[in-house]
């Protein structure tokens, strides 16, 4: 029994941390915000060159084969630095879908290009202003060609490859679709450092990944939830650090505001929430790396905890900063926006709460 990352894994996290501190500072994040591109392409290239996109991909497909524990730590740093890169879409969703569901030719064809950073991905799922259910999916594949529209697709404007949930003759399938015959129209989201777009497929050729698309998607979500939870955890820690820094520096009534219990106790509650998320994330990382039978429960637990933690830490980071926290100039809103953006990736808190409880019942009856 050993509940900690290894020294090598921690070393990797330090390297990623240093790289992103140097190359993905808040100025870089803000550039993605201001120039409307909503991607820091140099950071993406840098992550690819360091082999980080390839962290959990098998070596025969261009990966480094390091593994999922390592990938969790990379995700945590990506989250902490609010990196405006399609890391989650490409790595946790598209590369995962191909690795888990693709045939040999598909893996050979795409994974090396994803690992090198050449191909970026996106998951095209949502078609209506509601929590996603199978009966809302109207995009359709007929004779190997996909047609229809997806309402909000994270990282779509820069994507070369889509994983798409679409209707087949008798059910839902999960498909892989290249960029040709696909048009995107960028739309603003709550997080303006991240790209989101409406995507339209017009008889676009697709490759089938799974003919039981809905259930394949749920399995994909169980795995991706752990990785997004690490991003959220990183964000929560960064927002907490920012708040603590300010509480130590900012004086009012002749003393540092962090010495007032009203502020101190708020910061302590942020810490507790972050720490609960961290410990749940650690367990989920282990479950992910070992394909443990309780992965669905561990994933939902980490996901709910990390969503709560990032939302609380980013919200109260604004509060600790007072009026300055509500300015465009201060970075508080960037964390606040990202926390609310990530909270809805893969479906929101209430969906994951329900999922957690349903999984708990299954885990018990097993």
């Amino acid at each position: 029994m050993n509940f900690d990352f290894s020294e090598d894994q921690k070393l990797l996290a330090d390297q990623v941390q240093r790289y992103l501190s140097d190359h993905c500072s808040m100025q870089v994040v803000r550039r993605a915000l201001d120039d409307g591109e909503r991607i820091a392409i140099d950071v993406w290239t840098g992550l690819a060159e360091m082999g980080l996109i390839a962290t959990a991909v098998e070596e025969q497909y261009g990966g480094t084969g390091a593994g999922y524990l390592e990938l969790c730590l990379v995700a945590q740093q990506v989250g902490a630095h609010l990196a405006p890169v399609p890391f989650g879409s490409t790595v946790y969703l598209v590369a995962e879908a191909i690795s888990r569901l693709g045939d040999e030719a598909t893996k050979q064809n795409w994974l090396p290009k994803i690992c090198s950073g050449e191909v970026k991905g996106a998951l095209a799922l949502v078609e209506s202003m509601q929590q996603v259910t199978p009966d809302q999916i109207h995009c359709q594949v007929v004779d190997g060609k996909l047609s229809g529209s997806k309402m909000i697709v994270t990282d779509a404007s820069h994507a070369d490859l889509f994983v798409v949930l679409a209707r087949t003759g008798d059910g839902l399938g999960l498909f892989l679709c290249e960029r040709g015959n696909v048009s995107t129209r960028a739309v603003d989201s709550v997080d303006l450092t991240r790209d989101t777009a409406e995507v339209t497929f017009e008889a676009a050729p697709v490759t089938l990944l799974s003919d039981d698309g809905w259930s394949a998607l749920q399995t994909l979500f169980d795995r991706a939830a752990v990785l997004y939870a690490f991003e959220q955890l990183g964000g929560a820690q960064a927002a907490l650090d920012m708040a603590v820094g300010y509480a130590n520096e900012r004086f009012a009534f002749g003393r540092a505001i962090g010495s007032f219990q009203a502020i101190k106790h708020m910061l302590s509650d942020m810490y507790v929430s972050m720490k609960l998320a961290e410990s749940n994330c650690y367990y989920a990382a282990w479950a992910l790396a070992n394909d443990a039978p309780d992965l669905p429960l561990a994933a939902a637990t980490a996901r709910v905890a990390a969503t709560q933690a990032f939302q609380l830490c980013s919200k109260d980071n604004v509060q600790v900063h007072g009026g300055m926290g509500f300015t465009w100039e201060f970075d508080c809103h960037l964390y606040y926006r990202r926390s609310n953006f990530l909270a809805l990736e893969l479906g929101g808190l209430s969906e994951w709460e329900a999922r957690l409880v349903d999984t708990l019942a299954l885990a018990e009856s097993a």
Partner: protein
Amino acid sequence: MDFSDTPEESEFRAAARAFIDENGPDYLVPYLAKSGFGNTNTGDYDTLEEAKKWQKSKAEAGWACLAWPVEYGGRGATPIQNVIWSQEEGLYGRLSGTFIIGQGMCAPTMMAYASEEQKQRFLPKLASGEEVWCQLFSEPHGGSDLAGLRTRAEKDGDEWVINGQKIWTSGAQHSDYGILITRTDPAVAKHKGLTMFFLDMRSPGVKIVPIKQANGNSEFNEVYFDDVRIPDAQRLGEVGDGWRVSITTLMNERMAIGGSIATGFPEIHDLVKNTELNGRPAIEDPAVKARLADWYVKAAGLRNNASRMITALSKGDMPGPENSMGKLVAGNMMQDIAKFAIDLQGQAGRLVDPDVAEGAARFQAMLLRSPAVRIEGGTDQILRNIIGERVLGLPEDLRADKGMPFNEIPTGS
């Protein structure tokens, strides 16, 4: 990172299970399973007697206080073996409540500060449950501000004479010995004039008065000292160093309660599966799901946090101030759970008669006991201060008595 047992751990687990299967007081299982929050149910059997019996049989076979050195009655086990033992001990672990303070807090203080001879004399009997210990810290004037305590110790030859009053002493009525923090010098700053001792609870001049608590039970006591004499040889640490000594005790308190703290989750999960709401099992209601998920996340977070603490301990680290969060989270959670559970029971939720109320009134007992969880061993507010100051490094609050001699500090009375 690995949650599976190593071959050595599996072997250890099998040995522990074999001992427990062979020797556990299985006649108590149906009662222990029904233990409500804050009391151990042993049916018609005497709880203290049964607790001592089980402890003794564990000690004789080397299964008591596993992490202690063998010469003091332990097994020299690793922190992880200790966890494996408690997982296997299961329900029987509920019999250990009487010994938690003595073994979890007094013993580490004795190990750090008592003489070798004293350790040989006292620790094995503490491990075997033959002697029960209590901790005499809190006072009417020194609760959250523990260092504000007033119980005096005055030197008289080779002895110290103790006068004053302690309060909130759990288990004083069953205790043979206690560790006691006193003020030996009122003319210096409050943290500097304290000294720690241990004493025989049957010493002349010690008077124990049970406190009738708000929930009607009496787990806690007031302890009065009227010219109680303690040999200087029973001093723990230097004169004036009592604050530092008390930190050893309090740090171990975190470890003693941090890992295994009750949250009420299994109980509420059981209730919502078996109670109807609008004609369906309550667990199917989205609002119930949301709450249940939130509580599960907290309970799992504490459990996983405890696993991390054990990993840190097995690498030789001390339990840090971050473990203050365990009780902070669990106490609030338990109070919320009790309130919600009773709400689900409708007007009948008000019943507290165990013969009538749901689950022998487990949630009602929780409702009435949980306010104390948020106070005992550090209030929610003190714990948040500890996290804020000692973990996050925030500045201390302004202290009106800072550096002031104890006897000049305003008391408001």
